């Protein structure tokens, strides 16, 4: 894996296929915790750490235990248990060795167990059969993507708090509208990454098409019906 690939995967996971704005993972925490900048930073740092560790552990567990013993169908149960215990362990460690950090991050850690971003990324990496390096980059990129969006979003929401919004749009509705504009914006970043041709990259490409429920399928729908009617 060379530098260009690393940058491509990172930019792609941070912006274009952002974990929140394009993959719809972790929306609850995104809407719930992004009201203040400090809490958004606390939450997203916790998520960043947990997402990397959890993906790493579950990937190893999946590929070297579940596959070997043919227990793949149990992955959801195993993964959620692993994540829950991981969060517990991290909490205990932080509490013991960095109490001040625990004070600022502690309240967010229990929330993370039920944050679908963690389980979602863990499941996605094994579902699409990523290699070790890709998996790690994917997890790091997703975590940073989560951080970037949470930070931007908390800045915007703090600003929105000071604007004269219509009463009906205050709070969550306007946040979703902003998310929509951000999603348009981030999807326009296509192409700023270096172009690479590689097997692993091709793998990602197929994944992108598969998961992009958006346009292709529906354009086919539409054309199909359109022709029918013209006959």
């Amino acid at each position, binding site marked *: 894996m060379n530098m260009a690939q690393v940058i491509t995967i990172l930019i792609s996971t941070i912006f274009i296929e952002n974990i929140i704005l394009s993959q719809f993972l972790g929306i609850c925490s995104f809407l719930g915790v992004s009201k203040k900048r400090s809490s958004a930073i606390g939450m997203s740092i916790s998520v960043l750490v947990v997402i990397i560790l959890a993906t790493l552990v579950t990937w190893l567990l999946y590929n070297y235990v579940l596959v070997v013993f043919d227990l793949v169908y149990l992955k959801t149960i195993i993964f959620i248990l692993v994540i829950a215990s991981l969060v517990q362990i991290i909490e205990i460690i932080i509490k013991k060795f960095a109490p001040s950090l625990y004070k600022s991050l502690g309240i967010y850690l229990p929330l993370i167990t039920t944050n679908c971003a963690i389980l979602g990324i863990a499941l996605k990496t094994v579902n699409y059969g990523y290699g070790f390096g890709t998996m790690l980059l994917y997890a790091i990129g997703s975590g940073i993507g989560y951080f970037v969006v949470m930070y*931007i979003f908390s*800045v*915007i929401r703090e*600003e*929105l708090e000071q*604007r*004269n*919004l*219509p009463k*009906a*749009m205050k709070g969550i509705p*306007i946040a979703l*509208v*902003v998310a*929509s*504009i*951000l999603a*348009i*914006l981030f*999807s*326009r*970043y*296509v*192409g*700023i990454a*270096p172009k690479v041709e590689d097997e692993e990259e091709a793998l990602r490409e197929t994944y992108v098409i598969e998961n992009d429920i958006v346009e292709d399928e529906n354009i086919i729908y539409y054309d199909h019906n359109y022709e029918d009617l013209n006959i």
Partner: protein
Amino acid sequence: MEKYLVIKGPYLRSADITKRNTSTIMRDVLIALLPSIAFAIYKNVVLVLINGIYSSIYHAIYPIITLILAPLTSLICEAISLWVMKKRGIKTFKDLVEELKVSYGIFPGLFIVLISPTYIPLWVLLVSVAVGEVVGKMLFGGFGQNIFNPALVGRAFMAFTFSSHLGDAYLTSYELTIDAYSAATPLTSYAKAGAASIDIVNNYGGMFNLLIGNYPGALGETSTIAILIGAIYLIIKDVIDWRIPVVYLGTMFFITMIIGFIMGQGLWFPLFQILTGGVAFGAVFMATEPVTSPKTHLGRIMYALLLGELTVLFRLVGNMPEGVATSIVTMNIVGLMINKYVTKLRVEDKLTKKNCYGLVIFLVFFVLLFVYDVVMGVK
């Protein structure tokens, strides 16, 4: 006992004494747009009619129709949303009219039509205008409350949703007959070309023609001269700060010059980048929008520097024709952070260890983006 009026002071307003208020500022913006609009009509309607190459009269005067309908749609959307939301105590129809006078509803529509391809289908244009107006402006509370530039929200929506309609909508029917225009706009030609060469400029009639603006492009964006006239008017009238356009264009020029030198090209390369693709229009009318740009001199310079780098990034690396719009919307967000930081810096009035973190982060980002631009922009 006699009763006098009791309101809060101060009781003198320069807006009343000098007759320079928000309405006159907006009128000045409209006046500054006139050269661009006039040139757009000249290039897209008068020239086509003179050359006599058009399929129908509707097609020939289509740019005028869009120039009228888009601001109108925007105004109607504004009126409807104001009426539905009942903001600021609007109860009767008279209130609504009075409110429309001070909410300047035509501007998003006007800007969208000026930065869109000329022959875009009418419904695509109007839907984009409605989205820009309602989603970009009214949902945030109307004039002055928006976080993003409404016109650019509409433009980004158009580029995102209707990308299939945009490609060949730039050319007038007269321009369609010219073989030299291998692709729609100079920028798309550059994106398609394997390597940079001065042929691109020559195909579009040389550098002077690019300056005048007689080449395919969005309605109001092509003529740099007309935009420049408007810019000078706005700067003289103190409506916009000269720092943003000057620093923005300067940054773009500098970076593309370095990229051009690395590629072994002359000065034509940075000039070509600045004269095409609506950079001048974005620099003068979009990036300087008072609502969304930072308010202090330092903040504006930081904003314009990053804006220039981002535009180069989206242009040369991302191969996106509407790189200006994307970079300005991105900077609307970054601008919030910059503004927050420089406002506090201004209050403290001196740089200490404690409050220099923002400048450090800015410099790191600036250098990183600069290196990335130069490394990736070379073809």
